[in-house]
């Protein structure tokens, strides 16, 4: 079992003719992802890696009965690409693009409340169900099928812990990168609820970081709604206030909200063990399995 995507998911790549889009389309197809079409305005009729390209997402979805898309479109045009995917309509949209203006995402967020489509990201590495499919840029080779669900605001940090888990022979149901931006489509709570409903996910690892209050809200959800045990990790304990630590959303406010301490405390209060190091996270997972 898995959440959100599996080997039957039919995927469109938006921005398939760009450098990133082309490279990752090949990588995804090699992994087994069912890429059925590409969509790039003005490039209709072309082919990329044997995949037909259409001018609009709507046409690509109609011709190939697609249900999802992955967006590799530059930041200035990415919000428009998301609106187009919502309009098609697709069931599931993964926005990889980093650097979309926050006010653009506020408008997207408003539209999301009116449609049935789920957005993941932006500024995220995507989603992988090991052995079946991946939508995004996650390196397939480090993942393996198993019973741990992963949800994270950070890509490489997730890879680090996956590596620690793999070395101990522990695999994953699905890993979802929700993204490092202040306004995102799929939240920690959305992801945790999906893992809670998945009978094969035995433990969930949640990677949070400084900024916002999503981790605090997730902690409350875990305490009230979840039976599946959760292990936590919070990055940014040493981040100074007022500085953006790489991710647009990773910032402790001048008044001291969004700190690592507050998030760790909230998770501990919800009964969630929080690792001090990535290796400790793997220790906790191993104990709980």
């Amino acid at each position, binding site marked *: 079992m898995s959440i959100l995507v599996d080997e039957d998911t039919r995927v469109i790549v938006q921005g398939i003719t760009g450098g990133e889009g082309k490279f990752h389309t090949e990588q995804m197809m090699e992994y087994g992802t069912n890429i059925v079409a590409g969509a790039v305005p003005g490039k209709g009729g072309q082919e990329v890696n044997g995949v037909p390209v259409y001018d609009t997402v709507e046409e690509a979805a109609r011709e190939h009965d697609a249900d999802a898309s992955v967006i590799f479109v530059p930041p*200035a045009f990415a919000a428009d690409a998301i609106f187009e995917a919502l309009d098609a309509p697709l069931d599931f949209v993964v926005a990889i693009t980093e650097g979309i203006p926050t006010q653009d995402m506020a*408008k997207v967020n408003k539209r999301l409340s009116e449609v049935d489509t789920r957005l993941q990201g932006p500024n995220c590495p995507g989603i992988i169900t090991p052995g079946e499919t991946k939508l995004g840029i996650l390196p397939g080779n480090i993942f393996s099928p198993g019973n741990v669900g992963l949800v994270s605001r*950070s890509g490489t940090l997730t890879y680090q812990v996956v590596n620690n888990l793999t070395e101990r022979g522990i695999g994953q149901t699905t890993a979802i990168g929700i993204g490092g931006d202040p306004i995102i489509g799929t939240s920690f709570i959305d992801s945790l609820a999906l893992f809670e409903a998945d009978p094969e996910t035995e433990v969930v690892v949640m990677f949070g*970081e400084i900024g916002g209050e999503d981790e605090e809200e997730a902690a409350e959800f875990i305490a009230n709604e979840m039976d599946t045990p959760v292990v936590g990790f919070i990055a*940014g304990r040493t981040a100074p206030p007022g500085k953006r630590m*790489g991710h647009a959303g*990773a910032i402790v406010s001048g008044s001291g909200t969004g700190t690592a301490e507050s998030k760790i405390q909230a998770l501990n209060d919800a009964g969630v063990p929080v690792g001090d190091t990535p290796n400790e996270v793997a220790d906790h997972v191993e104990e709980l399995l």
Partner: protein
Amino acid sequence: MRLHEYQAKSVFADAGIPTPPSTLATTVDEAVEAAEEIGYPVAIKAQVHVGGRGKAGGIKLAEDGGEAREAADAILGMDLKGYTVDSVLVEGAVDFVDELYVGVTMDRGAGKAVTMVSRKGGVDIEAVAEEDPDAIAREHIDPAFGQHPFQARKVVYDADIPGEVSSDVTKVLSTLYRLWEDTDASDAEINPLMVTSDGDVVAADAVLNVDDDALFRHPDLEAFEEESFEDDLERKASEYGFDYVRLHGNVGIIGNGAGLVMTTLDLVDYFGGEPANFLDIGGGAKAERVTNALDMVFSDPNVDTVVFNIFGGITRGDEVAKGINEALESLEEIPKPVVVRLAGTNATEGREILNTELVQTEETLEDAVQRAIENAAEVTNE
């Protein structure tokens, strides 16, 4: 990007928000000259991105030329919470009877803007929010429509703003929201919005923080960017296109991916060291980026050692290793010991390629961080 007060004020004034007469000065003579021109009393205000400037001695009132000279001399060049003051804003002091607060910010949890108005201006508004949250009236704005005129009126009424100035405050808030939207701001704030004895409102301070990710569509704001840096290394990082934050320790840190770099900083701290910086070189790092990153970190005089933490995902460990070799072989000498930890895709091949005469290598993140801390301790003891 965080604008200085004088920059934000010029944007606000251009949009029609009343501001006191003011002039930027970088020398004591300029400051006195500006004060004479504006007329006393004046406020002399340090232009640095530090909260609580007044309490820290960065804002002084002057009643005459002698006091202006004394104040400018005290503030220019002073160290304000770690920042050197290079310029002051000389501003006509406002004869006020009341201090209000007006602000617009992105409520990330709600995914939309929130406007805020309060009678408790002139103090730290975040403290007010904490201690007396009802003293701040709030109104969320639908991003699809923008601020309806009634919403601006409503939040002003909700804040119990006195009737004599309520329409002026409403007008300021309408302008402030429009500016917030037009400049892709994350925060636009006036604290205090002073009410004068004549019953006018004047913006005595101005905050405008613009979304870095939206600067591409605001060429008009680019001129402010150069002056908004307060640290030469942060300016350099911006030129190289790195996400970089300077801290105060001696262990330099380079890695890929924001979460992993933050975690590396946290581990340095966890094992008893002090991180000197956050530097994310991003995905698919080529030799040139590696060279630039090392150049950045080596040029920080506080740094005694560097830890390079790379987790190869799509990026291959052998390519990163080649980049590190090229970068270090091009230097005449390695100024500070470098510890490299490569993991993930092709990490084994990478470790074989790494020139171990130039770098120390470790297999795990924990070992690499501890090795760097030992290096730093040795340098400190020398």
